[in-house]
């Protein structure tokens, strides 16, 4: 169907355009404005959404499968609601200006910098933070891979790196291109995703400890490209008993 093919082409094009460049010359995923998933929202009547709101207003957010209502001013960021109101302090504040990636969370499966997103705009969406990734005692595979590949030192950037990595996996699965993708009609696949692609797609998340090699290795492991190293397995066993 023509409309279908147009949609899929449009998706990948929007995804490509959705990569903004930071001052450092590195790609970041732009905020939700360019997200195709918001198409449905865009079609909703906008009247209520544009009413000027004075002072504080109740906002209901779906976070890690749980509904939370907070009364906040419209200018409050999602990051501040998570950390200051809901005690979900796993998400970190590194710069508060969309320049470091420490605050990365998942909204409808896509990554956003929660310091650049107003909490009130996230109503009706599904937010996942680092706290929402484990199922019971079971680590998310990306979390496990970060441990097995020593993908952190101080750990402060890690929640953001892990959320970014999960989003990266989703983006690749959906055929999303990046700024280094050579051929937009043939987006890369998980098993053959190059190191350059991984780096490009993670370059919006700074790590001052430079655990970058471990982070890349963790992503490669989850992509099914490499098995965990034997040394790492031993360490994880030792550390977790």
């Amino acid at each position, binding site marked *: 169907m023509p409309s279908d093919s147009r949609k899929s082409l449009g998706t990948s094009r929007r995804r490509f355009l959705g990569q903004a460049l*930071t*001052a*450092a010359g*590195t790609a970041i995923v732009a905020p939700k404005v360019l997200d195709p998933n918001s198409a449905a929202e865009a079609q909703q009547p906008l009247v209520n959404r544009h009413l000027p709101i004075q002072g504080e207003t109740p906002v209901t957010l779906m976070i890690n499968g749980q509904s939370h209502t907070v009364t906040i001013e419209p200018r409050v960021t999602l990051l501040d609601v998570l950390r200051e109101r809901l005690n979900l302090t796993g998400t*970190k504040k*590194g*710069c*508060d*200006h969309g*320049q*470091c990636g*420490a605050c990365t969370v998942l909204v409808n499966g896509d990554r956003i910098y929660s310091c650049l997103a107003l909490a009130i705009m996230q109503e009706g969406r599904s937010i996942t933070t680092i706290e929402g990734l484990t199922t019971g005692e079971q680590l998310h595979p990306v979390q496990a891979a970060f441990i097995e590949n*020593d993908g*952190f*030192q*101080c*750990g*402060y*950037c890690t929640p953001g790196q892990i959320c970014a990595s999960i989003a990266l996996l989703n983006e690749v699965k959906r055929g999303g291109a990046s700024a280094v993708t050579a051929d937009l009609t043939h987006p890369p696949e998980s098993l053959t995703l190059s*190191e*350059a692609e991984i*780096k*490009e797609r*993670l*370059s919006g*998340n*700074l*790590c*001052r*400890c*430079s*655990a*970058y*090699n*471990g*982070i*890349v290795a963790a992503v490669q492991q989850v992509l099914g490209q490499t098995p965990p190293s034997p*040394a*790492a397995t031993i*360490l994880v066993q*030792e*550390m977790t*008993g």
Partner: protein
Amino acid sequence: MSNIEPRKQHESAIGHVTGKATYTDDQRQPVGMLSLYPVLSPHAKARILNRDLTAAQAIPGVVTILLPEDIPGENDTGPIAHDEPLLPTDTVNYWGQPVAWVVGETEAAARQGAERVFVEYEPLDAVLSIPQAIAMESFHNSPQVCRRSDPDTALKTAPHVLEGEVEMNGQDHFYLETQTSWVVPDLEGNYLVYASTQHPTETQHIVARVLGVPSNRVVVTCLRMGGGFGGKESQANPMAAAAAIAAAKTGRPVRVRLRRHHDMMITGKRHGYLGRYRVGFDAEGKLLALDLALYSDGGWSLDLSPPVLLRAMLHADNAYYIPHMEVRGQIAKTNRVSNTAFRGFGGPQGMIVIEDIVDRVARSLNLPPEVVRERNFYHGEGETNTTHYGQELVDNRLMRVWQSVQAQAQFVDRKAAIAEFNQANPYKKRGIAVTPVKFGISFNKKTYNQAGALILIYTDGSIQLNHGGTEMGQGLHTKMLQVAAKALGVSLERFRMMPTSTDKVPNSSATAASSGADLNGQAVKDACETLKQRLAPVATKLLALDTPEEMVFADNWVYCRTYPSARVAFDEVVQAAYNDRVSLSATGFYRTPNIYWDPETYKGRPFYYFAYGAAVSEVEIDGFTGTFKLRQVDIVHDVGESLNPLVDKGQIEGGFVQGMGWLTMEELVWDAQGRLRTHAPSTYKIPTVSEIPDKFSVTLLERAAQDGTIYGSKAVGEPPFMLAMSVREAMRAAIAAFGDNPTYVPLALPATPEATLRAIDGLSAATSLEAAQPASSGVL
């Protein structure tokens, strides 16, 4: 007669009669915690004429505003000299200096309040660079001199003499977690401080100093840090102190968490340095004499600048034997942030100068730089293996790391291939370089080379481990758990690692100078030995044996070495020890032996040992844009017998990348008014994952156990930082390839694309200018 003073009164008497003795249910949780927000100076130097708080106080949610007169104790946070007011009384000394702290019910209220604090200034002339400080003789100290033999005469007789300058930038720590502290007052005059600090004991001292209370009233706890790198050694103190003043004034818990741009504006950084040298050498490139003046930018207050300068002076030789040498050092006093500790602590600044010189010497003789480097290595015994400050290297591993890294990197083959590539490509040039690192391990200040630990075993066999070191991502806690588990012969999961706290291990040293594992590891082991000595007789009794001497603790069992089949479980021994009324907690202590330093003669044995490493880097430079790509990095580094290879490799990679950032991209730009223009990640570029070389291989030197250290291991935090010098030298090699065998490749630091382009443009000019270079010695 008893020496014990008879107790005068019930220890809580005053609390009971005043109603101030708090009980569990009276304790305040940090709900209702107040927030601090700074008011910053808009001038690099100015007189404060007037402060108007009325508008700020009218903001709803502003609780109070901290001014110098609110400080009950001493208005000073200086770690060495008392020259650092927490809040300035009459003069501001750098752009971004906090002049007041607004205390708000929320951060937003405090921030709004801060915008409404109106301060009137009279701007004054500021000192904004090292050259300006030299010209105006604005210094923190008198010139320091470290001298070996007779460089003056040797420079007169040397076949070749060159002189020049190397100037380098500072570096922002950019720990991902900004400076953070919170303080809970208990209303009995005691303060609980939770601080992101590398030096809880010093934070305790400074908080006590500004509050005017004895140290025992302040407990400082550090859970862990989101990166430190030296930036939370002394720099954490003013924030904790401000929060403590606010807590004292309001009686409520208070937190401070700097916003990123404030952190970058307020806190000290790596020192920028200026080195001016004259070097004498022979036709083979052997260094004969060096005269070097090092000036550091100390900023507005002294902070830790003297020991940083000392380390720079003691590392100006790097790996090279220079028979006649004089290094002079002086700290410029400027109107900038007060520069401080940063991974390497002056070492990198000293070493980059000599690496710059050696490359220049080699090119001036048309010799390969790696050949000249190797020719000048410390070697043999006695004089030729002894540093300019009189310490012999003893277990010199330079040639081992040097040869293994070149073999690993296939240096010779690749150098030939690069020459071919450069022949064929006019607009892209590649360069390869190998550089050595020798780094002295120990705090330069002898006193700091001590550490303590406290181990508590509970009757169920679970254990709490305390030590004086802090965790900032370097894996110290992991290593300490490993040491304790090994020393006690029990499994890791028995332990709970406790947050570093001054009420558990007092009088601790900063977790700095790469010494965390060396010092604290020995203290932990010492505590374990004490506990084993107490437990061994208990086990002997349980096993119905005669003497406790031969008892072995391993795998959660205790048994006699000569009779291992009869054994008793660790848990059982612990329970029996408790029943026998044997103490199950012990402190441990360690002080580094055999180190000494004479500050008068600048001679001694300041370092317990040296760490060695070598790196090969290959870069490709684009002649149109000046950008470079780091193609491959090979490292061989000496960590002794590694306590944890995974952690150590992480430290090596991380240190290298951070060093590369300093040398090639992290540019601090101060404008003519002394304002830092690069105070956010948008303008200050640290390495991202994209700058990590595709081929990055790190090898730990094999068969490297070190005598007299904790399980044969060596310090690893700082030394790898300087492996990144190979990147700059590789860039100089690539830049040289754009020219016609230049005899000198000056390259500004950091080597940004602009600097690289300028270096390429300047190639021909540099050669002809060399003879005319102005004489720049004689200032110190």
